[in-house]
């Protein structure tokens, strides 16, 4: 492969895999192999596409013959219902990919997880570090699968210390194009909240999700990392900034309703991000390791990510200032501020890490 490092991205057809692959393709130092059951569409010149299921027993041979150096595992179904087929793909699929990596001598795995694995509960500290117990909801398919995968990964690390396993945990992802539990929650004009509860929420912009994954593919960091934007915001402020109306619901009804509607179409999933507990109690992650060990700083702050999201959405009627032009002006101001910060960082960061910043 003419000295290029080979990176294999699973789930290259989904929203995360395709963008990580596109970002890596822009860097001539990497040879990118995409693995999915279907190709990611147009505009991926140079992508070495392989159409296969991640549970394929021939995966070991594929990794060996292509001498894969890094596997970025993003083939995860993010669905709210408890489903056996999703569990099979998510948990069993991950085990098979990781197992194949060991067999084939892959030296690095990067995996995208969520801070929802810590769970939302009344006993949560205000800031959960990476060592916090995994109390994620068992009622939501996605969080249950991630908790299972995390349990597997802990054993995997002990047995295979030679493999560099980086797990990035993201809070609610928000952005103009991404489809995530949070963007679906905020998609309607009226957003259900719980009467008398206003937990602190944490966000990350979709662009920063891609950036941080690529950052970890290019640099070696072993271990679990919480990745979240600067700043936190109470749920009601978050909804207000997104230009929506909060509709307070008595929490008993919310639990009752969610148990009634879970598993019925998309409705059960968009009533709240993961589970009723996740809009009742805080589940804010501590990002000290991200700053101190990885040295990574997300481009967007929490409020900037929200404003960017809101400006692409319908114009709110409560706030007379939030006309399209006002939002546009606000967005440009945020963009200028971000670019200024990025320049400042670039001037202080040592040479070796320069490549990572100017991704856009």
């Amino acid at each position: 492969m003419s000295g290029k490092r080979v990176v294999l991205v699973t789930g290259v057809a989904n929203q995360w895999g395709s963008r990580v692959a596109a970002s890596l393709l822009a860097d001539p130092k990497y040879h990118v192999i995409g693995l999915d059951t279907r190709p990611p569409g147009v505009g991926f010149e140079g992508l070495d596409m392989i159409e296969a299921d991640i549970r394929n027993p021939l995966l070991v041979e594929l990794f060996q013959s292509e001498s894969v150096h890094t596997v970025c595992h993003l083939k995860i179904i993010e669905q709210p219902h408890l489903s056996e087929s999703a569990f099979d793909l998510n948990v069993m699929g991950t085990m098979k990919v990781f197992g194949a990596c060991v067999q084939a001598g892959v030296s690095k795995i990067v995996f995208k997880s969520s801070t929802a694995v810590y769970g939302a509960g009344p006993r949560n500290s205000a800031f959960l570090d990476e060592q916090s117990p995994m109390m994620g909801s068992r009622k939501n398919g996605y969080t249950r699968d991630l908790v299972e995968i995390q349990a597997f990964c802990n054993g995997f690390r002990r047995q295979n210390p030679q493999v560099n396993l980086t797990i990035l945990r993201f809070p609610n992802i928000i952005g103009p194009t991404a489809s995530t539990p949070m963007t679906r929650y905020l998609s309607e004009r009226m957003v259900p909240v719980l009467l008398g509860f206003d937990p602190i929420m944490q966000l990350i912009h979709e662009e920063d999700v891609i950036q941080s994954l690529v950052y970890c593919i290019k640099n070696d960091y072993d271990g679990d990392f919480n990745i979240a934007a600067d700043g936190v915001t109470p749920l009601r402020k978050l909804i207000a900034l997104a230009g929506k109306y909060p509709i307070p619901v008595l929490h008993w009804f919310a639990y009752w309703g969610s148990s009634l509607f879970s598993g019925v179409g998309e409705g059960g999933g968009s009533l709240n991000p993961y589970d009723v507990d996740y809009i009742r109690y805080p589940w804010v992650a501590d990002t000290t390791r991200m700053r101190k060990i990885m040295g990574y700083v997300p481009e967007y702050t929490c409020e900037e990510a929200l404003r960017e999201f809101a400006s692409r959405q319908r114009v709110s009627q409560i706030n007379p200032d939030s006309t399209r032009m006002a939002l546009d002006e606000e967005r440009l101001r945020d963009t200028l501020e971000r670019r200024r910060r990025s320049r400042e960082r670039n001037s202080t960061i040592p040479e070796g890490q320069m490549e990572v910043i100017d991704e856009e």
Partner: protein
Amino acid sequence: MRNEAGERIRCFALTKAGTQCKNFSLEGSEFCRVHQPSDEGDDILEAEGFETPEDAAGAVEDSMDETAEQDLRRQLLAELDRLIERVQAMTPGYTPPPFSPRRLLKLIAENVENITPEIGLGILEKLRSTIGEDIFDVDTWKGIWYMLNYTLEYQGDILRRRFTGEYETDEWGLDMEVVDAIKPFFDFMYYKYWRVETTGFENIPEEGRALLVANHSGQLPWDGSMLGTAVYNEHPTQRLVRTLYADWFPTVPFISSLLTKTGQALASEDNGTRLLEQEQLVAVFPEGIKGVGKLYKDRYKLARFGRGGFIRMALTTGAPILPVSIVGAEETYISLAKSPLIANLLGLPFFPISLTWPWMGPLGFVPLPTKWYIDIGEPIQMDSYSPDDASNVVLTTQLSDQVRNIIQDMIFLRLAQRKSVLFG
């Protein structure tokens, strides 16, 4: 006054016609010779002649004081100009609607309910006395018009901003607007209802980390709110106490969000350590739920002190421990027994049976108006220990017992001096 370039700047005041004064300002002042306020300008609104119409009317009759009256008027105008100037500097974009005395009266009539009674009464009385004094002057009215419009605009703004999300919270969820909104209630409980007497404010550092350790009592966590009110109101630097609360409260609607918005945090070692590292003043009640749910016969006997988490917090951060005794809170509810069965059924940590609860329904929540004493003891410095000592179980349990004994002694000392539960 001169600007950076050394040029003399123009006078800051507005003329009677409402335009910017074109005179140059005097040396060392923001105003020209005409608008120069006198030295006692700051207190001019409290000047006696202004408050009582009768006195002022008498003064006008006295021709000797006519020039003094003119002076007072000029000073008043200058003062008003200065106020307007200050407000304009804060909000450059704001211009009030066009002025007419009739419209001003209408505005006042419409909004008397919206502003707090004291302010409303103040404005009305001032207006009344101005008219009585017969110093009806377009400039004065214009000034009042401007100030009133600004106040109302700002007050209406708060409500609007709650809907558009333009308010600030810190990373713990502290929202100072909420704190200001609920403060009057806690002030009433502190000054009028329980007539709390607090000593030892000098022991709380003016800034920097410190850990208040207090006894817990009284079925509902009133004691925490009173300790917070005491320090916020009476400490010289108005410090906000970050109380660590038990993990039952986050499950209760409204209490959960209220605790977050007033900057309190869940009682966990991580939270306490993080707050102390941010140089905050943290309060803990190591007795926890056991202390709150004490029966009346066990009053003022300290319950077991948790597992010494607060000592570890102090050791790792080097924060001094301030023992606090709260006397009077124990008698706010007379808890005779506890019903574990009902508590289990309702999912509560404990269910008290008191003289009034649950027999009298919501009235059972009304606490008795006892007399309270809060004593803040001398700091116990942690300088002689190292952060590694936090893992030394022998040391932490010993220190925990030591702090417990100090607080118990402080309580007994105060109880011995107290003659009556209700009157102190």
